C-alpha cells in the first residue's frame, strides 16, 4: 500500500516545496455567479456575523470572570445559583434571533427548489468516476473525465494551474437562461457540486433529483464530486463553461454534427478490419482512460476488490464472455457497462489490448464487427 520507492525522494521534497506550486486560496465562500449563489453568500455572512456577535458577548463575559474573579485576587465567591428572570431572558432572546435568521433562509430555500419553467434541461449521470451529460432537448450527450495526467498526480511532472480541476469535455450551458439539471447515477451515490452556482445535489442510483441555475457571466466554473464514491472520489472534477446564448447555439450545432459523423463512421467501420498495431494503440489509450483506475495499468487489479486481467481465464480463453463483460458490465459489482460510454472501435481495441498485453499474448484480434455482433445478440 505504501509506495516506498516514492517515499525516498518525496520526504525531502515535502520539507522544502510545500508551497512552491500553491496559488492563493480565498478565505471565504464564493459569491458565485447567479442570483441564488449571491443570496446564499449573504445568508452565510449574516449568520456568521450573528455568531461572532454572540460569541463576542459570551467570551468577553467569560474572560472578564477569568480576569476579575480569580481566587488569587482574594475575592470571596458569591453564592447565587439561580435566577428565573435571567434564564427566561437567555432562552427567549436566542429564539427571536433564530426566527430572524429563519425568514431569509426560508425565502432563499424556496427559490432554490423552484425548478419550473426551465429553458433547457441537462441530465447528469454520475458513475465511478466520471460524469455523463445529456441535453434532453438536443442530440448531444457525452462523458466528462479527469484530464490531469497521472504523471502529475504521481509527482513525476510539475502540476499545472488547474491540477485535478480539469476535464476532457466540459459541460457547456448558455448564460441568462434557466438551466435545469436532472441528476442520477449508474452505480453509487455521487454529488454534483458547483460552488459558483451554489448547487450541490446528490446523484442517487435509480432516482432523479433536480435543481437549476441561471448564470449571468460567461466563464469557466469548476467544482468536484462531493460524496464519497469509492477509490477515485477525489479525481472526479466538474467543469462548466457558460457561453452567451449565441455561442452556445454554435457549440450545440457543432456537437450535433460531430455526433452524426461519429455514427456514420461507426457504420463504415463494421465492414473494415483494423490492424493489430492500430488496435493496440487505440486500446492502450482507452484502457488507460477507462479501465486502469480499477484494473491498474499493469492489468493486475487490486486483489480482493478489482480482479486481475493479466492471466485471467476469461481474458485468455472466453472471447464472447469478455466482450459481453465489457459491453454490459457485471451487475452487483463495480464493473460498469461500457456499451454506451465507448465507441465500437474503442471497445474492440481495448479488448484486443487486454487479450494481448501483459503477457496474455492470445494473438487474437477483435474487430468492431465482432463487438457489434455481440451487441446485437448474434455473438456466440
Amino acid at each position, binding site marked *: 500500500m505504501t509506495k516506498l520507492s516514492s517515499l525516498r525522494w518525496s520526504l525531502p521534497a515535502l520539507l522544502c516545496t510545500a508551497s512552491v*506550486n500553491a496559488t492563493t486560496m480565498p478565505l471565504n465562500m464564493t459569491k458565485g455567479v447567479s442570483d441564488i449563489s449571491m443570496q446564499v453568500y449573504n*445568508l452565510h455572512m449574516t*449568520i456568521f456575523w450573528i455568531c461572532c456577535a454572540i460569541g463576542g458577548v459570551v467570551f468577553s463575559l467569560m474572560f472578564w470572570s477569568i480576569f476579575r474573579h480569580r481566587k488569587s485576587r482574594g475575592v470571596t465567591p458569591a453564592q447565587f445559583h439561580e*435566577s428565573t428572570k435571567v434564564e427566561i431572558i437567555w432562552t427567549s432572546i436566542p429564539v427571536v434571533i433564530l426566527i430572524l435568521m429563519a425568514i431569509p433562509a426560508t425565502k432563499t430555500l424556496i427559490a432554490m427548489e423552484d425548478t419550473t419553467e426551465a429553458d433547457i434541461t441537462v441530465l447528469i449521470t454520475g458513475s465511478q468516476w466520471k460524469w455523463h451529460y445529456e441535453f434532453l432537448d438536443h442530440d448531444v450527450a457525452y462523458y466528462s473525465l479527469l484530464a490531469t495526467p497521472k504523471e502529475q*498526480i504521481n509527482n513525476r511532472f510539475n502540476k499545472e494551474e488547474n491540477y485535478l480541476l480539469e476535464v476532457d469535455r466540459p459541460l457547456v450551458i448558455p448564460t441568462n437562461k434557466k438551466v435545469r439539471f436532472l441528476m442520477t447515477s449508474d452505480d453509487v451515490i455521487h454529488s454534483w457540486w458547483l460552488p459558483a452556482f451554489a448547487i450541490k445535489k446528490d446523484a442517487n*442510483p435509480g432516482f432523479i433529483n433536480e435543481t437549476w441555475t441561471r448564470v449571468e457571466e460567461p466563464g469557466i466554473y469548476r467544482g468536484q464530486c462531493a*460524496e464519497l464514491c469509492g477509490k477515485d472520489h477525489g479525481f472526479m472534477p466538474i467543469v462548466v463553461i457558460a457561453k452567451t446564448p449565441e455561442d452556445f447555439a454554435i457549440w450545440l450545432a457543432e456537437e450535433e454534427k460531430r455526433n452524426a459523423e461519429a455514427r456514420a463512421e461507426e457504420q463504415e467501420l463494421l465492414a473494415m478490419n483494423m490492424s493489430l498495431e492500430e488496435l493496440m494503440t487505440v486500446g492502450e489509450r482507452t484502457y488507460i482512460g477507462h479501465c486502469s483506475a480499477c484494473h491498474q495499468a499493469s492489468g493486475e487489479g487490486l486483489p480482493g476488490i478489482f480482479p486481475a486481467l493479466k492471466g485471467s481465464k476469461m481474458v485468455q480463453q472466453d472471447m464472447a464472455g469478455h466482450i459481453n463483460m465489457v459491453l454490459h458490465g457485471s451487475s452487483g459489482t463495480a464493473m460498469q457497462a461500457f456499451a454506451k460510454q465507448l465507441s465500437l472501435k474503442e471497445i474492440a481495441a481495448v479488448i484486443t489490448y487486454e487479450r494481448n498485453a501483459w503477457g496474455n499474448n492470445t494473438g487474437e484480434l477483435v474487430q468492431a464487427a465482432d463487438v457489434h455482433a455481440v451487441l446485437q445478440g448474434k455473438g456466440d
Partner: protein
Amino acid sequence: MSVITESAVVDEHHDHKPKGIKRWLYTTNHKDIGSLYLIFSLIMFFIGGTMAMVIRLELFQPGLQFVEPHFFNQMTTVHGLVMVFGAVMPAFTGLANWMIPMMIGAPDMALPRMNNWSFWILPFAFLILLSSLFMPGGGPAFGWTFYAPLSSTYSSDSTALFVFSVHIMGISSIMGAINVIVTIFNMRAPTMTWMKMPMFVWTWLVTAFLLIMVMPVLAGAVTMVLTDKYFATSFFDAAGGGDPVLFQHIFWFFGHPEVYIMILPAFGIISSIVPAFSRKPLFGYASMVYATGSIALLSFLVWAHHMFTTGMPVFAELFFMYCTMLISVPTGVKVFNWVATMWRGAMTFEAPMMFAMAFIVLFTIGGFSGLMLAITPADFQYHDTYFVVAHFHYVLVTGAVFSIMAGAYYWLPKWTGFMYDEKLAQWHFWCSLISVNLLFFPMHFVGLAGMPRRIPDYALQFADFNALISVGGFLFGLSQLLFVWVVVKCARGGEKATAQVWEGAQGLEWEVPSPAPYHTFTTPPEVK
C-alpha cells in the same frame, strides 16, 4: 458521613481482590471495569490518532506521496469508527463506571457480571475491525457513515467483518447503557432525590436512554447492508425496489442521537468541574437538567439535516432546518449557565479547569458552525467539505475529548490516591490547545474555499493551508504523549491526595478517601 466511609476502608474484608490477570479478566468491580474501559479507550485514541497522522501525512502536499487512494479511504473510515466507538464512547463509559456508583452512594454497578461482559467483548470487536485492514481488498473504505450502495454492492470482502464488529460494539453499548440506567434507578442512596443527582449522573442517564433507543437502529442498518451484499436482498438497491436514500434515513436516525451520546456526558463533566474551581454552586441546576432532556428529545427530530443534498421535499427541508436551529437554544442555555457559574466566583486554574474552560470556548465555536450548517441553503455549500470536518472536530475533539481530559485530571487523584504533576499537565494543556486550533481552525477556510472532505489529493490552491493543518495535526498527536506520561507518573506515586482533593469540589465521591476503597459504600451515605 465520613465516619461511615472510614470504617469501610479499615475493614479489610471489604477490600480484598484477586491478584494478577484473573483480577482483570473476571472482575465485576466497577472501578476495575472503569479502569479497563479508560485504558482501552486511550489505546484506541492512539490507534485512531495514528490513522489520522497517515491521513495528514498524505494531505501535507498535493499529489499522491505515501498511500494509494483506496488505502486512504480505509484510513478515513477506520479512523472515524475507532475514534467514535473505540475512543470517545468507551472513555465516557469508563468514567460512568468509575464515578456513577461513587456519586450516588452505591457500592457497585447494579449488574456487575454484565458489566464484565460489556467491556470484554469490545477488544474483540476492534480486533476484528482492525484485522480486516490486512485482508485482500483491504478493510472498510466507505466512510464511517458507510452509505449504501458503496458499502453493500461495491465494497470489498471485509464488509462482513465490519458488520460483525459493529454488531458487537452495539451490544456492548446497550449492555453498558442498561447497567447505567438500572444503577441510577435502583441504587441511589435513599436521600438522593432526582433533583439532587449530580449533573454527570443526569447527563449519563439521558445518554443511556439515547443509547438503548438508537443502537438497535444501527444494528438494523448494518444487518440490511449485510443481507444486501451477501443474501441478494434489495433494501438499498433501486433495481430491486429499494432505495439508497432509505439507508441514510436509517443511519442518521441512529447517527444524530449518536453525536449527542458523545457530548451529553461531556456536559455533565464540565458541570462538575466549573463549579468546583469557581467555588460556587452550578448556576441554574434545574434548567441544566431540562436542557439536557430537551437536547435529547430534539436529537430525534433532526436526523435529516445530514441529508439536505439528497433531494428531499422542500417542506421536509424546512422542518429539519427549524428543528435543528432550535437545538441551539438549550445548548446556549448550558453555555450561559457555565459562564454565570464562573461569574463572581473565586476561580483557580488547575488542569481540569483549564480543559473545561477551553471546552466551553471551543465547543461553542463548534456550536456556531453547527448553527451555520443548519441553515439549509448555506448547507448546500458547506456540506461534505472541510467546513464540516472542522465543525465536528471542534465538537468531538475540543468538545468530547477535552472534557474527557478534564475529567481524567479532575478525578485522577481520587483514582490513584496521588496528585498528578500539575506542571506537566499545564504543558499538556497548552500544547494541546495551540496545536488543536492550528489543526482544525484553518479547516473552516479550506472548506469555504471549496475543498471536499475525504479526498486523498487536492487542487493547488489548498496546498499552504493543508501543510499548516498537517503540522498542527502532528503537534497535537505528539502532545498527547505528555498525557500518557502524566497519567503513568501519577499512577506510580507522588504527593498523597486528600479525600476532598479540590477545595471547591462537591459530591459524595469527595467524601471517601483517596484512593477510593475497592468497595466504596457498605451502607448508604447521607446526602446533604
